């Protein structure tokens, strides 16, 4: 019987434990964001600095942009940090979000095997996609409605091509960026990725990756990140005051400098570009 009493006490402690230290006095701002801002470690840096500056704890859940927008629409978070400008504008126009501010950008690149069978190296994005299509070169797509996937769909259309949805050389993973890069590497295919995640991939492989950057620098490949506050008129429960403070902070000089100085392997991942 003694055994059961001890076991019972342990159970109570583990279950009640979280309730006891829940008495945090700091206000909490809840964000939904994309995997790239979280996976690179940028948000850890921003959150600790924001806490020092404003005494507000930033918590976030990292998903694709599609799900992040959905969480915002359902009033589950106070603020978004995402990278799909067209979808964001629709979100604001529908009345779900307010105060959308551009924060930073990096760019997308097309990576592929060193051998580059489709010969896209150094071409414009339009020529590169056309070449991939003509040569039926294996292309690995995110296929998950994320910001990167939306960008890829946009690029096919902008190049005057239909999305090769059902072609045998077009593979949709439905997974995150790094997993998708790994799949592309295993299958010797091409893929569209943001440069930050590619640098991270390069870093984990000690600078000797089987995939290399083939197409970059085209203005159409810009990757813009913005913050959007959830509209308090749409969602009465959101923390509008905290969200507003965060937006004012992140577009301010201190936070913008912080973003510019954030590096991996000595390479900057994001370029701050908030308009004052």
């Amino acid at each position: 019987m003694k055994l059961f009493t001890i076991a019972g006490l342990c159970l109570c402690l583990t279950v009640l434990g979280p309730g006891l230290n829940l008495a945090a006095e700091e206000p909490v701002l809840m964000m939904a964001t994309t995997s790239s801002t979280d996976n690179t470690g940028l948000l850890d840096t921003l959150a600790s600095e924001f806490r020092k500056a404003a005494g507000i704890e930033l918590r976030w859940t990292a998903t694709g942009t599609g799900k992040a927008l959905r969480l915002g629409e359902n009033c589950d978070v106070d603020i978004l940090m995402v990278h799909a400008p067209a979808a964001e504008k629709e979100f604001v126009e529908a009345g779900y979000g307010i105060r959308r501010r551009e924060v930073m950008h990096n760019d997308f690149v097309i990576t592929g095997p060193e051998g580059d069978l489709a010969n896209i190296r150094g071409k414009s994005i339009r020529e590169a996609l056309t070449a991939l299509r003509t040569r039926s070169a294996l292309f690995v797509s995110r296929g998950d409605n994320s910001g990167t996937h939306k960008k890829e769909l946009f690029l096919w259309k902008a190049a005057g091509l239909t999305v090769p949805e059902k072609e045998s050389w077009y593979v949709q993973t439905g997974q995150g960026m790094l997993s998708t890069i790994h799949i592309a590497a295993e299958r010797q295919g091409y893929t569209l990725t943001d440069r930050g995640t590619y640098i991270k991939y390069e870093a984990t492989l000690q600078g000797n990756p089987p995939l290399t950057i083939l197409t970059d620098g085209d203005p159409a490949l810009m990757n813009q990140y913005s913050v959007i506050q959830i509209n308090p008129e749409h969602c009465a429960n959101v923390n509008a005051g905290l969200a507003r403070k965060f937006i004012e902070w992140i577009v301010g000089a201190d936070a913008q400098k912080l973003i510019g100085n954030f590096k991996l392997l000595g390479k900057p991942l994001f370029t701050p570009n908030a308009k004052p």
Partner: protein
Amino acid sequence: MDFLLDGLMQAARLLTGGDAETYSAIMITLQVSTLSMLCSLLIGIPLGFSLGHFEFPGKRPLRTLVDTLMALPTVFIGLLVYAFLTHRGPLGHFGLLFTLPGIAIGQTILALPIVIGLTATAIESLEEKTRVTLLSLGANRRQLFLSSLWEARHGVLSGAIAAYGRVMTEVGISMMVGGNIKWQTRTITTAIALETNKGQFGMGVALGLVLLAIAFGVNLSVSFLRRKT
């Protein structure tokens, strides 16, 4: 391949070196799975007993339903619970989304069919003699319930262990309802998913081994209890 060995070494380092993030994930996993198991056992054992013990019309279809629900996909449960807990859902005003009790609700739904089904099977497989003996000794309903459960304890325990294994290792519910928030709702399994997405395969393997070590500890104490009784 080399990340497997790397993972083994990292697992040892995480456990002995007192890595704060790992310990937070371990504590959260233990808290939420304990809460889910308590709820599912409290609800599931009486229901399982009733299903195994009593004869009533529609019993067979009900058994089939319970057995089918054992195959509930975790991501589906996650979506279902999310639909109720989101701020625009019917239970939104309780603010349970992105909390441990929120995850526990989903995991209870996951564990319940297993607890009910296996308890019912254990009670059914008791020999008819046991029931008759209990009744002839003048057992009242409460005594009948408790004594039958006692006789069927090994079967019920197996059900509980199977359910615990599923609860500990699920990732769909924790990810969808919990949101994988650092220090708050990041369990070992969602941490594994995150590390894998980040390309830190070694760290993913290490956390997987940590989870296995915890499961080993739990099963060790259960088998100790079993020998005592």
